[in-house]
């Protein structure tokens, strides 16, 4: 009996090797220009042809690895020879294909020492294309079939293949770029190995100087980042707690409205708040103008710097802290507080000695989330930082500015990464598990006792003005686009919207004349492509984590969640470093944006999947298996239908996050593939606030429409009156970093 799966992947491999062009050239992933020049042009020939004609002889041996499995096609799975041959073909084949890719580059040897060994060469090859991609996929899955045949994960080919796929993807698109950034940190400007330069940069005064304490010299960038992050962490945790208490423990009105506040940070591009703050407090801002008119205070640039950045980050991240804390506050059992009161503790004492300590893990969690968010944030310090430089912005300016110093960017990235990873590690180590188990569903009887009067006053005193302020900020965003020239001419105009989104009828139909259409449509298309991929990869990973037992599961989990803690700027730099040259040449394409979104947002899908999949009884999968369904069929017909709400949530979140992302994107956009956020930032840098704010408000409205539309369209399928399982609900909003 033929082994159908092996046949399938062998066929895929041979199509890739013998039919499709091995290299990817200029047209990008979706370009099919190669078809025209397929036969004439040797650069477009398949690997097999290049190899045999002697054009690129090192591609010929690949055939060997694609021939080997033919020998065992008819062998049973149990046969040790079957697994040995597949392991060898897949493993060595993959190693060989990757090895040749990293050895021969665009212009000869990729590594100088090879030239020393083999002499100079005029060999050259380009980035891998369809052909190489299919061959790699085929070899990977042949390898995983070999592993499965050895009995891993009960010999389940689908599961082993999925694990192999995820590992390969994460390795290629997260770990490989990270190693590139490490390597480049140890290189000097010419690419030579220079460890002393690394140490020099790492400890430089630029980063760690403390002169600002004693003189007017500026302090190190690392200190700036840390101080800002700690301030933001503490203040968002406190504000988040105040809001959480206000919503759950007081009779404040407009609680629904407060809940709405929580979706704002997801749909607001991170720098928009900063933009609104400029419109308020900038030199020609509304508040500044009023102050000058009323009190004769001359407008200045005081808002640019630590204070302004802190203010805008606080506005942006307080809702996230609120989300983290509301679960915690609701999870504190009233029974405890009641017990304390029956022991004659006054309400202040109860709050200070019982309630607050019970919330401590949640508070620490909120602090860490705010801390990481602030460190990773790029948009707000970019717009409002002024002279106050933080790591994420310095990384950007090291690359795009006159410095153009990749090594410096890499070192800054490593420092930033060290900060966020430490916080991420701390969060998982101390708190990760606790915060999941707060709400049990088993209703604790009892009502929360009243908060002490003074505290209630304090809560009102902070939350109400803050909510009003947030409201004003969003009002600025919504209406700012209708004002002619902010600070000078406040007459109503639609000009900014027309500039951005003008549509007219030309000779050949609709003309998208507005300046924003290009980036707007690119953004929507790229995000729409990325969303299902993100959800797919994320949910598949979640399925493997929740439902399968395999060796190295913990490492696997850590690896897949890691990208959560990698700041976008670091990702951006590392992608440029890793994917600018063969074997994987992606910069300037739309694909690199899609890939960046998929792997940055993948943890969102993973968490959504884990949360809802753990609510689905494992015996459902098992009974499907014993009824003769394969694990793939089980996933498709039993698990996925029950996961529908989680799938929708993952789709929406990844779409929205892709639309609003800026930090990594700004490194990866190109003239052809410009994204909305980077376009807006560009406008802001040119001082064109009107168009920027008009565009931002359109983005926000589009996001709201998407979210509401999806919610209405999907609804929830009834599982019957006594649902034995709860339909896995949309997970609490995911907390991610810019």
């Amino acid at each position: 009996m033929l082994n159908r799966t092996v046949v399938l992947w062998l066929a895929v491999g041979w199509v890739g090797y013998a039919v499709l062009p091995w290299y990817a050239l200029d047209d990008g992933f979706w370009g099919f220009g190669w078809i025209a020049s397929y036969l004439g042009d040797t650069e477009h020939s398949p690997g097999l042809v290049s190899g045999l004609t002697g054009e690129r002889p090192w591609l010929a041996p690949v055939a060997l690895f694609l021939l080997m499995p033919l020998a065992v096609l008819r062998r049973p799975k149990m046969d040790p020879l079957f697994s040995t041959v597949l392991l060898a073909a897949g493993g060595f084949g993959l190693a060989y294909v990757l090895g040749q890719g990293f050895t021969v580059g665009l212009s000869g040897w990729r590594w100088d020492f090879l030239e020393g060994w083999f002499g100079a060469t005029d060999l050259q090859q380009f980035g891998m294309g369809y052909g190489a991609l299919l061959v790699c996929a085929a070899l990977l899955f042949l390898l995983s079939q070999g592993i499965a045949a050895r009995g891993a994960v009960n010999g389940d080919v689908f599961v082993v293949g999925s694990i192999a796929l995820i590992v390969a993807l994460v390795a290629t698109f997260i770990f490989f770029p990270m190693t590139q950034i490490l390597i480049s940190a140890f290189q000097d400007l010419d690419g030579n190995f220079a460890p002393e330069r690394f140490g020099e940069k790492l400890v430089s005064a630029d980063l760690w100087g403390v002169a600002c304490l004693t003189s007017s010299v500026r302090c190190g960038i690392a200190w700036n980042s840390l101080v800002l992050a700690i301030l933001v962490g503490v203040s968002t945790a406190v504000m988040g707690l105040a809001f959480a208490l206000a919503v759950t423990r007081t009779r404040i009105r407009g609680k629904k409205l407060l809940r709405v506040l929580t979706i704002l940070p997801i749909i607001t591009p991170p720098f928009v708040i900063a933009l609104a703050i400029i419109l308020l407090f900038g030199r020609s801002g509304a508040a500044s103008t009023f102050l000058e008119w009323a009190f004769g205070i001359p407008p200045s640039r005081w808002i640019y710097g630590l204070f302004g950045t802190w203010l805008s980050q606080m506005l942006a991240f307080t809702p996230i802290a609120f989300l983290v804390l509301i679960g915690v506050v609701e999870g504190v059992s009233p029974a405890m507080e009641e017990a304390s009161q029956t022991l004659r503790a006054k309400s202040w004492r109860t709050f200070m000695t019982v309630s607050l300590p019970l919330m401590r893990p949640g508070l620490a969690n909120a602090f860490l989330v705010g801390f990481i968010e602030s460190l990773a944030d790029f948009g707000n310090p970019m717009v409002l930082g002024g002279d106050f430089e933080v790591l994420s912005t310095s990384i950007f300016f090291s690359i795009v500015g006159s410095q153009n110093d990749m090594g410096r960017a890499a070192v800054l990235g490593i420092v930033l990464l060290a900060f966020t990873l430490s916080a991420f590690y701390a969060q998982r180590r101390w708190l990760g598990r606790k915060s999941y188990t707060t709400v049990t569903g088993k209703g604790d009887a009892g009502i929360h006792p009243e908060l002490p009067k003074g505290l209630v006053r304090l809560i009102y005193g902070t939350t109400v003005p803050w909510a009003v302020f947030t409201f004003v900020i969003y009002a600025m965003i919504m209406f700012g686009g209708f004002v002619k020239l902010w600070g000078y001419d406040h007459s109503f105009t639609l000009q900014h919207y027309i500039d951005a989104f003008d549509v007219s009828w030309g000779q050949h139909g609709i003309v998208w004349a507005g300046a924003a259409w290009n980036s707007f449509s690119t953004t929507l298309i790229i995000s729409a492509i990325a969303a299902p991929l993100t959800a797919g990869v994320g949910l598949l990973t979640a399925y493997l984590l929740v439902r399968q037992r395999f060796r190295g599961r913990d490492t696997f989990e850590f690896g897949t969640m890691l990208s959560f803690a990698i700041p976008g700027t670091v990702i951006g730099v590392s992608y440029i470093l890793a994917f600018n040259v063969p074997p994987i040449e992606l910069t300037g394409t739309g694909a690199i944006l899609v890939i960046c979104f998929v792997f940055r947002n993948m943890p969102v899908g993973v968490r959504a999947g884990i949360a809802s999949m753990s609510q689905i009884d494992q015996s459902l999968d098992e009974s499907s298996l014993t009824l003769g369904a394969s694990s793939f069929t089980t996933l498709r017909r039993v698990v996925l239908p029950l996961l529908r709400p989680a799938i929708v949530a993952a789709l929406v979140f990844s779409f929205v996050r892709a639309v609003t992302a800026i930090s990594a994107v700004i490194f990866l956009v190109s003239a052809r593939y410009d994204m909305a956020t980077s376009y807006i930032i560009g406008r802001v840098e040119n001082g064109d606030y009107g168009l920027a704010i008009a565009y931002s408000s359109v983005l926000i409205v589009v996001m709201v429409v998407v979210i509401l539309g999806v919610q209405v369209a999907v609804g929830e399928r009834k599982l019957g009156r006594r649902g034995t399982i709860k339909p896995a609900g949309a997970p609490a909003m995911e907390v991610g970093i810019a």
Partner: protein
Amino acid sequence: MTLKGKAASVEFRNVTKAFGPVVAVRDLTFTIEAGELITFLGPSGCGKTTTLRMIAGLELATSGQIFIGGDEVTRLPATDRDVAMVFQSYALFPHMTVAENVAYGLTVGGGPKAEARARAREGLHLVGLDGFEERMPSELSGGQQQRVAVARALVLEPQVLLFDEPLSNLDAKLRRRMREEIRDLQRSLGLTAVYVTHDQSEALAVSDRIVVMRNAAIAQVGSPQDLYERPVDGFVADFIGDANLVEAEVVRVEGEEAVVRIGGIETRRPGRSVAPGPAKVAIRPEALKLSEGREPGSIEGTVTRAVYLGSHLEYVVECVLGELFVIDHAMESPIPQGATVAIRLARRGVNLVPGRDSEAQAATQGIQTEPA
């Protein structure tokens, strides 16, 4: 009725299953004949579910071999085994109707839709659920869900049908009825069935044979009657039928019989190759006959507790043998608490058992004594 089982035998040869350092099943060897209903019985954590899951292919054995219908399946995953399982939680797919649930195994096999539907209806008929096809599982009572789960397994005509504590979520009355229905179906379809429970009366009621497990290994295999009347050790005697384990002495052996001194009186019992000397005796609670007052040739005791249970009376009697648990079906003359009684032994229900009782007791109390 066209549904029938393709009953096959199941054989375990030296099967061991370890989860990391925990050995869930140790060196298990047994055979289940085709068409037989066999029950795995034992205290919590003794490895029943693990054994069942190894038959299903949901766990793969760490070592040893498993055969179904004479073919080795040791490394075959669940999907590829011709085995169906009824889960404790029923595991009905909540997003499919009853009919879709029952037809699931047939459709994933790639069979034609219409035939699957017809077979599903037949299966539902078999379990008495005609007309429930279009309901969602959540719109059924617990007993009905149970039946759907059984029907879903039956329509595949599996070689082996597995039940993991299928009745534990039902109330006592329904439990009794369902276990009889399952037994009738199994008999009429000639299925090989493996049934896990920790309810000994359920096991005695439905099984052709019972496997009593203890500490990841088999304590005894036999028909219900075998186990009840000829337990191999104190653990089995105690686990099946709450026997009183008491110290005794074998005075001498006379052919097939042994003369045993229990609490000062001598009695003859079937003695299977015992040697004279100290011994253990398992006494069924029904095998102790009480009468008020003192009588020569009997053991004297005091009733420390008397409980009236409608169909019978339960006593705890304090005597030289220690505390004895007694069941008395003679309802006419209840004995008051505190009374002095004469205890005599019935002909049946008093058995010599081999020693090893410390281990047995540990196991009955659920304490895992992990042998080194």
